[in-house]
């Protein structure tokens, strides 16, 4: 009962702040609302006993990525008028199309969740007595080692690419 109340309160707060993110006039305020959203999502993880994920959510998203957003927002001039030749309705159409795709995805996930088979619990992760962090470690480094390494190489390549693009002479 208490857990349900906490869940719905957090869900309402997350959605409320998410709406504020897209409606705020000042871009810096948007970024701040985004931080609040991330913090409440972290609380949701705590509620699900995923402490490691919650802490990483705060560290990586709230503490790292959004700080960079804030730098960009503060340093870039966002007040300039949109460029003249751009068709103003193009952005609306694009937005509606993207929203449609996301909605379809949600419906698919919901249908699958209600009708599909239960997800198989990851083998080694279910080790009895292992705490949350250890379970994540087993899942990442034992069960999903190759996808994990591929993702890290992808990030490395992206980082190198950004450096090469940004720096004219090396």
């Amino acid at each position: 009962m208490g857990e349900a109340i906490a869940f719905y309160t957090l869900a309402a707060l997350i959605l409320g702040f998410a709406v504020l993110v897209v409606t705020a006039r000042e871009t810096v305020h948007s970024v701040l609302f985004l931080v609040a959203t991330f913090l409440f999502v972290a609380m949701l993880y705590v509620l699900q006993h995923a402490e490691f994920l919650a802490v990483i959510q705060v560290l990586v998203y709230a503490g790292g990525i959004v700080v960079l957003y804030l730098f960009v927002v503060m340093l870039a001039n966002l007040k300039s008028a949109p460029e003249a030749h751009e068709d103003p309705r193009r952005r609306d159409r694009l937005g509606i199309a993207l929203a449609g795709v996301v909605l379809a995805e949600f419906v698919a996930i919901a249908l699958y969740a209600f009708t599909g088979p239960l997800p198989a619990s990851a083998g080694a992760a279910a080790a009895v007595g292992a705490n949350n962090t250890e379970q994540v470690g087993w899942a990442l480094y034992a069960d999903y080692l190759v996808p994990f390494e591929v993702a890290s190489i992808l990030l490395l390549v992206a980082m190198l690419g950004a450096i090469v693009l940004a720096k004219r002479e090396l």
Partner: protein
Amino acid sequence: MVETVVIPLVQIVIVLFGVLTAVAYLVLLERKVQAWVQVRLGPMRVGPHGILQPIADVVKLLIKEDITPARVDKWVFTLAPIIVLVPALIVFAVIPFGTPANIFGFSLPLYISDINVGLLYIVSVASLGVYGIILGGWASNSKYPLLSSLRASAQLISYEVAVTMMLVSMVLMAGTLSMVGMVEAQQSQGMWYAFTQPVAFAIYFIGGLAETNRAPFDLPEAEQELVGGFHTEYSGIRFALFFLAEYANMIVVSSVATTVFLGGWLRPFPGVEWLAFLDIVPTWVWFIVKTFGLLYLFLWIRATLPRYRYDQLMRLGWKVFIPIAIANVIVTAALKVIL
């Protein structure tokens, strides 16, 4: 009810009160130490040897006029000091001050919470403090605070990498992320990690100086260039919150260093048998003594070293500390596997 609500509340009140008192007296200690280094007396008027000076300072800051300059972003301007202070205070939730104390038959643990991701919690909460600094400078709508807040946040982000990397080595050493587990690991290995990991300790401490914007890395507050730093436009109680946060952050860095590197509540040389008579001292006294020893080092360094230049600071962070930190993690991991 008593277990889940009353005891934690009492603990929170005691810890908050203790930390805020420590902050107030740290300010006095700083002024005294600076004065002694410069062969002065320091504050002497309020109480014997200025012992009541912190109370006078707090009262002064509380009753001063709180000015909100024209054309600031009011909400963010008000929020920024709070965002700076809150992370600095809630870190203390996971710091173990000693072994459980026996009070009136109750066994009262001397920590508020022992979560299994304690160290990560500290790192992640501490990473939120940078928002207050950036937003305080931005919301002031003034040139110098903005420049200062950009400097401060760039500095914080750069040194955070090396500091976090050092804590990763310590997690490898202890095999746990829990702060209590960290101290227990040092107890069972019979050695403070400052002796087994001196490089990590040194870089953590220097990185801590940079993260708290203390001399010799106090560029965000360089008076000659930036008037007064990101809090130039703040006055009264809101300035006091920034001030409080800076000193609370120093205590955070020192108490985390004490727990992770200096054995927390353990006596010196916990592995040496004939020093066992030292156990007569209560565990929390060891913790406080070690923490204040590190804080004294902060003050001593401030009184001794000149300020770095900005490019020197960045070079030190990125080209010296981060490579050493990565090497330290790799060597620690390799030794862990071999031994």
